[in-house]
């Protein structure tokens, strides 16, 4: 049986990076908008 660990790890890491970046960008943008608005 071939070892496919690299493909599985890459899929999960990539998902975490993309969604994590989106969360951070959303928080950063909300913070910036809130600051400017105050």
């Amino acid at each position: 049986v071939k070892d496919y660990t690299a493909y599985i790890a890459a899929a999960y890491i990539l998902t975490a990076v993309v969604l994590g970046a989106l969360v951070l960008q959303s928080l950063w943008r909300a913070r910036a908008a809130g600051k400017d608005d105050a």
Partner: protein
Amino acid sequence: LNTAAILSRYANPGRFLALAKWLLPVSSGVAALSLAAGVYAAFFASPPDYQQGETVRIMYIHVPAAWMALFVYSTMAIAALVGLVWKHVLAELYAKAVAPVGAAFTFVCLTTGSLWGRPMWGAWWVWDARLTSVLILFFLYIGYMALVDAFDDEQRGLNAGAGLLLIGAVNIPIIKFSVDWFNTLHQPASIMRLGAPTIDHAMLAPLLLMALGFNALFVSLACLRLRTEITLRKRRSREVPA
């Protein structure tokens, strides 16, 4: 409450902000818990597939991401229609706010699919109906974001974007039924089908947990980003006196 009553109730941004105040922490908590439980179940509480072996674990992110890609676009298209017909402020801003979220889920769907396809199909990519129609969906998200930002007048951008969303909505049933209409390498539906799911319960549980997590994450991001859009619009309306 009927649909029209709900629509008019949340046309008032103040009411949405009050809703988002408690919904955001609740959905964020649900997202964190269900994603943690889902990842645990995906790796430690579900068996390898009898044909695909361990690579089936990619399914637990690939399939929920695909569902979200379609779901987010569908909600954007409905919001575009509501925005165009009833000049519903929140509906107009909603599509703009969640477009990057939908694009991110579509990107995750495409890339995890590729990482699953290479070991199982022997190809990173094939130009079959399912993969190509999802790639078009990704371009629709990107195109919408570019189009909305291309106008100096925000309202004109939102209207043009809404038009694109409505035209692009024809792609949604094409994606869904592409695996039935065309001879594709991609497998047909196992869960969202008439009749019972064809997937084993041991694999269905982590899949549904991850789907719940992605949905809750989407609700959180939608609340957060829509709140930001409301703040930015308020500021712009102060800067430019009507």
